[in-house]
């Protein structure tokens, strides 16, 4: 549909921009928080821009935090020197100065990103601060590597296995095929809690708990949703092509590999992308099956931005979140045409 009149175009643009603003807004807040220093992340009332305050205490000009309005002197603020000392023993200098004496600058803290990645998963920034053993070697790149491993292997498995299985449902007429297909669809309705604990038992029996295998090996054995998608797509490929190949003496495998698969690039792209996007952010699986930090994935490592008092280091969490989702956003942006067309050509029509 293409809007014909200028008015229609205008309305469409207005709706698009309006909707985009609403949808983008929390994300902008996420990015804004990632650039703030710790004490400004959760300030009430909320502020958008990260600020830096400078004032003179005891004759020394330094960066300070603006804590609270001085109780008995209107127009005056209690400020404290920044950065706060790391040990309990030291007492940071503070003073009460008038609002006019505090210089305010807008200063985004880009180094939040560096620190967020360096301390991801609860890691100490430098081993000098007392990391022991395996803990010290686990970095952002470890998490990235684990996540990529799981995602890429999972994609290979998903495409490979589901194509084979969907081929059998779509192109070969065998006894019991349709019953099996209905059963397959029924498995989509099984809620995860039903599977959760026995699956854990299966992996425990296999000895895979604590490794990454429970996260990617099941992809090599098919999944109902992908089987459904690919089967629908294969059914749109004319039977005459396979017939002709069969007459030429091609084996079933040959037809699959040589004819059907090359024509299925759109749906392969869809399955690959869906699986990659899902596996990248999957959180429940790693939560259940991974025990050692050096096996954690990015989604799980995001959990561990905790600080004293059980609070969350928002600025680091948001910074890490931005880093974690950028690859997917880029991936989606570049592949959306293939994505959407691929789903379209499966004709989710039952």
């Amino acid at each position, binding site marked *: 549909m293409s809007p014909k009149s200028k008015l229609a175009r205008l309305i469409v643009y207005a709706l698009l921009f309006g909707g985009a603003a609403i949808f983008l807004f929390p994300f902008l807040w996420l990015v804004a928080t990632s650039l703030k220093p710790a004490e400004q992340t959760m300030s009430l009332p909320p502020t958008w821009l990260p600020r830096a305050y400078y004032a003179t205490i005891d004759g020394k000009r330094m960066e300070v935090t603006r804590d609270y309005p001085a109780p008995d002197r209107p127009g005056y603020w209690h400020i404290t020197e920044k950065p706060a000392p790391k040990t309990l023993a030291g007492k940071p200098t503070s003073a009460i100065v008038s609002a006019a004496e505090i210089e305010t600058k807008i200063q985004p803290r880009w180094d939040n990103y560096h620190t967020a990645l360096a301390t991801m998963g*609860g890691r100490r920034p430098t081993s000098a601060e007392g990391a*022991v053993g395996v803990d010290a070697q686990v970095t952002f790149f470890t998490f990235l590597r684990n996540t990529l491993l799981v995602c890429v292997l999972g994609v290979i498995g998903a495409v490979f296995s589901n194509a084979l299985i969907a081929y059998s449902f779509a192109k070969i007429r065998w006894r019991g095929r349709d019953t099996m297909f209905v059963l397959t669809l029924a498995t989509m309705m099984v809620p995860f809690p039903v599977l959760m604990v026995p699956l854990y038992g299966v992996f425990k029996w296999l000895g895979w708990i*604590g490794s990454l295998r429970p996260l990617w090996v099941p992809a090599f054995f098919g999944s109902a949703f992908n089987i459904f998608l690919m089967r629908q797509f294969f059914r749109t490929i004319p039977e005459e092509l396979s017939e002709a190949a069969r007459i030429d003496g091609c084996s079933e495998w040959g037809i699959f590999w040589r004819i059907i698969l090359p024509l299925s690039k759109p749906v392969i792209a869809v399955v690959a992308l869906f699986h990659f996007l899902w596996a990248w952010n999957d959180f429940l699986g790693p939560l259940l099956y991974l025990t050692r930090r050096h096996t954690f994935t990015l989604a799980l490592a995001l959990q561990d931005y905790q600080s004293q008092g059980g609070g969350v280091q928002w600025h680091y969490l948001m910074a890490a979140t931005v880093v974690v989702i950028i690859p997917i956003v880029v991936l989606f942006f570049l592949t959306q045409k293939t994505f959407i067309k691929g789903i379209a050509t499966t004709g989710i029509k039952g």
Partner: protein
Amino acid sequence: MPVGIRKIVSANRRICCVLALILVSGLLVPTLLSGADDKVHITYWEKWSGFEADAMRRTVEQFNRSQNKVVVEFLSLSSVDRKALIATAGGDPPDVVGLWAYNVYSFADRDALQPLDDFIRAEPTPSGGQASTPEQWLARYEPVYADMCTYRGRVWAGLSTPSMTALHWNKAMFRAAGLDPERPPRTLAELDAFAEKLTKRDPKTGEVVQLGFLPQEPNWFAWAYPLWFGGQLLDGDKITIGTDPHNLQCYQWVESYTRKYGLDQVRAFSSGFGNFASPQNAFLSGKVAMEFQGVYMNNFIRQFRPGMEYGVTAWPTAAPGLDDFTVADTDLLAIPRGAKHPREAWEFIKFISSANLNAQREDELSGMELVCYLQGKNSPLRQWSPFFEQHHPHPYIGVFRQLARSPHAVHLPKMGIWQEYRRETDTMFDAVRLLAESPEQALAFCQRRISESWSWHRKSLERRSSDIANRPLTRALQTTAVPGLSLMGRGNPDELTPNGKPNVPLTNAPLPLGERVRVRGHEIIAKSP
């Protein structure tokens, strides 16, 4: 087949072989190996992060340096209890795990921890004798903390760090309201009266801008309010949340605070409270003048509002005779069942349970005192070293030490379903303070629910002990490398310790070696493994 297709098919076959190889090699990727020296490496999972984790890390390093047989690998994890649960169920638990107290009781009920009694008995007594009894070993702690280590007649854990609560009051706000800043409220009536004086409203809109006290700020100890009023949560093995009249009084008092100020007012005002660990904390930012908080509060005051004038004291008396009431809590170190190095884990727990009581300088602090000093908490040991006593970062640590010795210091009830009980009381507290239910309704509901859960839980435990009697005792006889044989079965379900009163009945003596013993219909020979 035409040549072209044959070539392609064989090429495809090659591709398939490669894919299969990837799959197989992926399955065979070896896991990381541990250290290659001949020291025993044990894993220790702990729930802390930030400076609290740093404190324990330093203490762990001190332990590692102090001897050359055991190396502890410290791992700081979130939701450590759930991870430990899954790991223990999966047969691959850490050697030491830092749990919350209620985890220890529910894990112990399910046979998921190793009791420490045999390790303790292998220790020499303080006077140099051969075998310590658990009572002797636990005597190092203040009674209220010692009591938390035992459950159903056994010692299940050692302490990592304790905490103690007190009424914190803002002296500057007292002064501004015309109250004596050095005199906190001593009774419940005084608390209410002082709160009234410290409450301010905006003259134009009538909105609340400052409160003297609000029961829900914080709501961390709301479960203990009934105990504060002299009520009981558990009496023997009966649930008494709904039957004890003091509990009703307590919740009526909670309700009265919302009614006094108006539900909408309180809701609007409290939704403006910032995070606990921020300068906008209600107490730190002067929105609430008095609150019950723990010994760790000083750390946050120092960080977010240094120089704040405040005081600490015991909870005001709410029930006649119940003076110096306070709530104690602690984190515990336990050894999960199936841990690979329980002996070495015990060595570490032993280290954390002791201290250098002659320390005169900071670098002489050791074990428990080092951790508590760095975390700014009180030490649960009865004796303190001179340096700890005099140079502790908390200005009022002496008050907390006194409170730990109070005869009316309570801890949470030691029961396997405490987590659920706590959730129910928290929900009940919310319902009452939001005026969604009357105190009677809420208490009756809670009573019914928890009684059902409690009887279900006890039935479940009975079921298991009778089930064990009908099965070979293989699991029950799986012992650790400990001299003497102890039966890791369930204790008598009726041996519950009433909450709050120090009572350490310990009945398990080791069986004499070499004797034939009849246990529940099976004959076994006690021998050292």
